[in-house]
């Protein structure tokens, strides 16, 4: 369980919270919820979707409660990416994604980086598919403006 999901959840939580310590807390909370609740799943995909959904919810909850991340310095994000071995060109792209407002960032990450189809992103985020598509389109526009090029 831990091996299957820890990295994935940490990545996702970090992408939303942009702080390593917060991301770690969020991942811990997700596993605690899992062990408290002992949910049952139809299959592995269902299980993974549950973890992602709970992680996204937890991160949103932390953002709201703590009123954090109004502006995490880009340098901190770049440092983290560099420490992870991400080269500067890709670091620029990821940092641009991380710089998007939360509601665009989450769907962009789930769709383009975690590679979930729109339908599943919609389910994970409790949005309609058209809302997801709109956010993706808007997110792409913002990225293009930020990076000065299409991805």
């Amino acid at each position, binding site marked *: 369980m831990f091996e299957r999901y820890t*990295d994935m959840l940490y990545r996702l939580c970090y992408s939303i919270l942009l702080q390593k310590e917060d991301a770690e807390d969020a991942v811990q909370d997700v596993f605690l919820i899992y062990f408290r609740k002992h949910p049952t799943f139809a299959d592995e995909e269902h299980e993974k979707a549950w973890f992602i959904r709970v992680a996204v919810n937890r991160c949103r909850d932390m953002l709201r409660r703590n009123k954090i991340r109004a502006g995490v310095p880009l340098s901190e994000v770049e440092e983290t990416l560099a420490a992870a071995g991400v080269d500067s060109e890709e670091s620029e792209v990821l940092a641009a994604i991380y710089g998007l407002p939360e509601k665009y960032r989450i769907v962009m990450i789930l769709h383009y980086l975690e590679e979930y189809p729109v339908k599943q992103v919609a389910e994970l985020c409790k949005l309609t598919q058209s809302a997801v598509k709109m956010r993706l389109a808007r997110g792409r526009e913002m990225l293009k403006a930020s990076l000065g090029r299409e991805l």
Partner: protein
Amino acid sequence: MNKNTIDAYHKITAPEGLQERIEARIRAEQAATAARRSPWWKGVWVPAATAFAAAAICLAVWAGGAGTGRQDGENRMAEMRLGDSPSVQLMSERGEVLGSSQTVLDVYSGETADLNVMLVSARGVAPAEADPFGQETDGSGQKDSAKRSGVRAAVFQVTVTEPVTFRTDSESLSVYDVNEMLWTELCSELILETDGELCVLLSPMGDGEVFYIEMSSAEGQSEIQIVYDETAGRYLASCQEITGE
């Protein structure tokens, strides 16, 4: 998004030792849970001091009816205390006050057919005998209200098919998604200040959603719990204020 970006994203990994820290936290929690073994509701309600300490009337609110799916999955009954001035109001979108805990002895039906608010009370009934979410309070709920003598129990029963506003003097309001065991604070998005009170818009949620509303305050203890009861096909809400804990 090109593959390099996706690969770069996947280079982010959890810090070393995270798994061990999680395991340690889980073990600690399991040990604490085993030691505590307290009634579920004691861990659920948020403690705080009440602004209405001189509670002349204590209202026992029973929650935990069908569909609540609380921690251990059992349907239990629990007693909670409500101060005499809990300042909780249920309002329509148009700003009409549809019910409040200060009118707890009333049975109130909203003007619209879609929005039906009932405040049902039963005094002097031991928790085990009360049936706040059962047949006695079903339908109009009128037979239960103030007609029982010695009212000490109150249950908000709310059918929500349009957004309603809960108003309280508490400082925060959260929705709890029982399915995912998560609190989501709504205030930051939905708060409206009116004479120092909070107004929170609560939209009806999807099929089978089970959620609670929690209100907490630095000084006061008051909470509304909203539970979507799948069996009843409606939202059930209870409010409480705790003193002395």
